[in-house]
């Protein structure tokens, strides 16, 4: 099972997209407009990465955007960016934890 399928398989994850830091689109699960999501999230990850470089924070590992009805979780692997749309946003922490456990087990 790919990492994308792993993320999309979590019950709180509504959709998942795989792209890269340049905004390129690779794959999507349950997301009809994966190209747009990949482009936006690639740009977002790049900007946050640059800010982190200015601040000396090292490599960006993940980012989470939260709102009243949903959240987006970005996980970086090298230049790949995986984005998961989480609903409800309160489930963000449990999704991160499940993802950590799953990815740690695979390494």
């Amino acid at each position, binding site marked *: 099972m790919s990492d994308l399928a792993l993320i999309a398989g979590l019950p709180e994850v509504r959709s998942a997209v795989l792209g890269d830091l340049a905004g390129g689109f690779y794959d999507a699960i349950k997301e009809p407009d994966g190209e747009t999501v990949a482009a936006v999230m690639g740009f977002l990850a790049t*900007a*946050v990465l*640059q800010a*982190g470089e200015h601040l000396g924070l090292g490599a960006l590992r993940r*980012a*989470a955007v939260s709102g009243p009805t949903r959240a*987006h979780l970005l996980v970086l692997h090298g230049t790949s960016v995986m984005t998961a749309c989480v609903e409800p946003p309160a489930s963000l922490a449990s999704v991160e934890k499940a993802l950590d456990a799953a990815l740690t087990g695979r390494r």
Partner: protein
Amino acid sequence: MDTILQSLLDLAGVTAALVFDGAGKLVAHRGHGVYDRPLCEQVSATLVKATDAVALQQRDWESLTAQFADGKLLLRNLGATGDGRSHVLALVADASLNPSFATVAVRVAATKLRKVLEGGPGSSATDLGGSRPPPAASSSQIPPPPAASSSQIPGDSRPVLANSGLSWSKISSVGLSRVAVADPAAGAFLTRCAKELARHVGPIAKVYVEEAVRRVSADAPFALAAAGPLLEDLANQIEDPDDRAKFRGALKNG
């Protein structure tokens, strides 16, 4: 606003706290060590690209948390003020940050900052304590530095003073009313600093001087013994090297 950001900076693990607007312009900042104004301005300009991208995907976003190898970056959307300008609070932290405490502290700070930005008590431009010029100066036409006789204090600035713990002593004719000085000579020096700095940075100069005094003389009234560090601190607010040298020269020779 400075007081609110300082309260965040007091949190264990936090290395800088800043507020920037929707144009990526730094409004206010507080930071340890290397997290000075130029760096925070650079970071603000970069982070606004990130928040613009977030808004494309999730217009109602409230917070963004980024986990790095050596620290964290927390952004909180402060929303738009009456004039339509949006603002974002950013917190920079190292790995020792307690995420639970930080979440609560950021929420509290965001609530207070919204009140200040929306025109609550102490919301005048001089109270923002940062790099944003007064709203009237937001266009390309920048008003001249305050005249020597214009020492009128904004009526709504006192509530913030009451909370800041800073003493209230009128020391100069350029509105430096929020810093304490050891003697009249020190007050006169600050006045000269503000006037000279205003030649290079405009009317925001007096805010810069107030902030610099707090940095170099945080625990005691400003005295001439701290003139050297203050001069260097203020010189760093001037981007152009030639202007910086002129500023230093004018005050050292004056």
